[in-house]
């Protein structure tokens, strides 16, 4: 069963998967880690992004990645609107712990059921020129279906990282979770800043969803499986750390790929949740936590 070739293949697949996972979790690192908004509906938004990519691809033959990029502003606006509602209904009343969570849970459920009603529970895929090829060297293969999303994921990652560390607004987003009052004294409106941050967080879901449907077929309820992955990465990274998210994503990707290669794919979903439970139990501040 065990061979070096298999191991190397699993490692490569793990790194490619990990980069993608990091991009998927990026939105949650911003919303949960930095803005302190526990958006458990985040994976549902990602699936929504996948279905938009699917729809544009099957109707007009649009490239999924291009669709993802086009829809970033739309998702940004949805996110900003959702935050406004969340703020007015829960955060301002200091009631986000119970009802805020229930709210996002309800939103997740609505998105999932709505997608089931429109598209059914069949798995959907997209078509593009780079899907289905692979580069081979000896027994080691790199599928382009994984490689292209990996590159896009890293690009998106870098863009958000630069925005967060170089611009005033980006730094303000990082500051708002640390000290709301201090940010107010600097002349920035915390609500507007959080709105911007949450918009960015949901915006990344548009592209992440497009990447997801390139990598594997998607059906409405797979979003729930990704809750484990994204929260495991966000917690393992140390909430709010963007470089930590990349490292944690790679760790999870490699671990999952190794487990599904050597123990069988039916065990793969448990890896993320196992890591999450272990991280919560033994190191809740994460690898890069303060």
């Amino acid at each position, binding site marked *: 069963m065990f061979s070096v070739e298999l191991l190397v293949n699993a490692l490569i697949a793990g790194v490619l998967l990990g980069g993608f996972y990091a991009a998927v979790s990026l939105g949650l690192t911003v919303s949960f880690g930095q803005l302190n908004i526990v958006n458990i509906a985040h994976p549902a938004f990602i699936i929504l992004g996948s279905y938009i990519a699917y729809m544009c691809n099957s109707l007009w033959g649009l490239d999924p990645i291009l669709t993802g990029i086009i829809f970033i502003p739309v998702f940004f606006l949805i996110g900003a609107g959702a935050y406004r509602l969340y703020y007015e209904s829960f955060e301002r009343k200091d009631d986000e712990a119970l009802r805020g969570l229930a709210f996002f849970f309800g939103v997740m459920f609505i998105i999932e059921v709505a997608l089931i009603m429109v598209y059914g529970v069949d798995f959907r895929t997209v078509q593009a020129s780079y899907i289905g090829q692979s580069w081979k060297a000896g027994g080691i293969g790199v599928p382009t279906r994984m490689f292209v999303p990996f590159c896009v994921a890293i690009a998106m990652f870098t863009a958000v990282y630069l925005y967060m560390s170089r611009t005033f607004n980006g730094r303000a987003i990082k500051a708002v979770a640390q000290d709301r009052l201090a940010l107010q004294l600097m002349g920035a409106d915390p609500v507007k800043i959080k709105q911007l941050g949450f918009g960015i967080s949901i915006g990344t879901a548009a592209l992440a969803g497009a990447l997801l449907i390139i990598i594997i077929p998607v059906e409405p309820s797979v979003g729930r499986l990704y809750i484990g992955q994204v929260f495991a990465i966000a917690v393992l990274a140390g909430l709010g750390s963007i470089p930590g998210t990349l490292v944690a994503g790679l760790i999870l990707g490699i671990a999952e790929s190794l487990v599904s290669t050597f123990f069988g794919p*039916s065990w793969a979903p448990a890896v993320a949740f196992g890591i999450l439970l272990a991280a919560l139990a033994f190191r809740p501040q994460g690898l890069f936590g303060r």
Partner: protein
Amino acid sequence: MKWPALKLSPFWLCAAAIAVLGIAVTIFDLFNINTFIFFAGYVVLQYVVLATAWNIMGGYMGYVNFGTAGFFAVGAYASVVLYNLFQAPLALMIPFAGVVCALLGLAMGYLTLRLRGVFFAIATLAMAIVLETLIINWEFVGGATGAYILRSREQAPFGDYIEFLFFVMLLLAIFAVSVARWLELSRTGRGFIAIRDDEIAAECAGVPTLRLKLIATTVSGFLMGVAGAPFALYVSFIEPSSAFNLIYAVNAIAMPMIGGATTWLGPVIGALLLGTVQQVATVTISSELNLLIVGIVLVFFVIVAPEGIVGLLKKWLGGRRDDR
């Protein structure tokens, strides 16, 4: 204010009356009710138990459990294990399932309750998926393909077996509500409320917060397991995706939220209302639409009526003071 101390409070009179009525309709076939009503009624009562159990953790203490489906399914599969081992009777399955889930709740709580509340919520979500993966890979209980549980067609003196299960679930519902109400009115319950309002202040005032949280998650887990115990017999074919269905988790949250999460009455009202609507809607409209309605109603209530129906009623009755 005083009446909980009385021996024959209205609550116990009502509970006894409901139990007697249950005997009358199941054993003596009073009103000659169609078996389908029992079939549907079982599900509604099961939701009374689940919603009440969720509310002990969520409503009283403000700790959200997304893993109701996990506890429920573990309860159901605990019964399957006993059945596969020695064809255990239901009377043994129920306490066994309860204890297994109580231990699960205790372990979950012990691992995560020292952290911020939100980590408990995320961990429960994770736990449900880990458990589902374990069950899928466990051949003894049927794995991914599922397992058949043969039940007898009839159970004397109830007649049809479904009527018997309905009666059992009725007793479990009364039991669950009594436990929740007793906790709520006791010193422990006041501790829960103190934790919900301000955990740090409660800790400073000498409330043993971790111990109370562990009590709540254990009791809540026990009740969820008990609700799941007869499930395999009810459906007679159990498989992971139906036992771990998200609808249990959603309903367990939506029902107390709609009814009013701060009192024992809230989840009962929510479960009876929403449960009945769902049973009617599954028959008359599509079941997907029915799920969508649950989601929308949940979001609507948490935004517009945070205190639920009980809160609305209180307001409507002229803001009478709530003296629990």
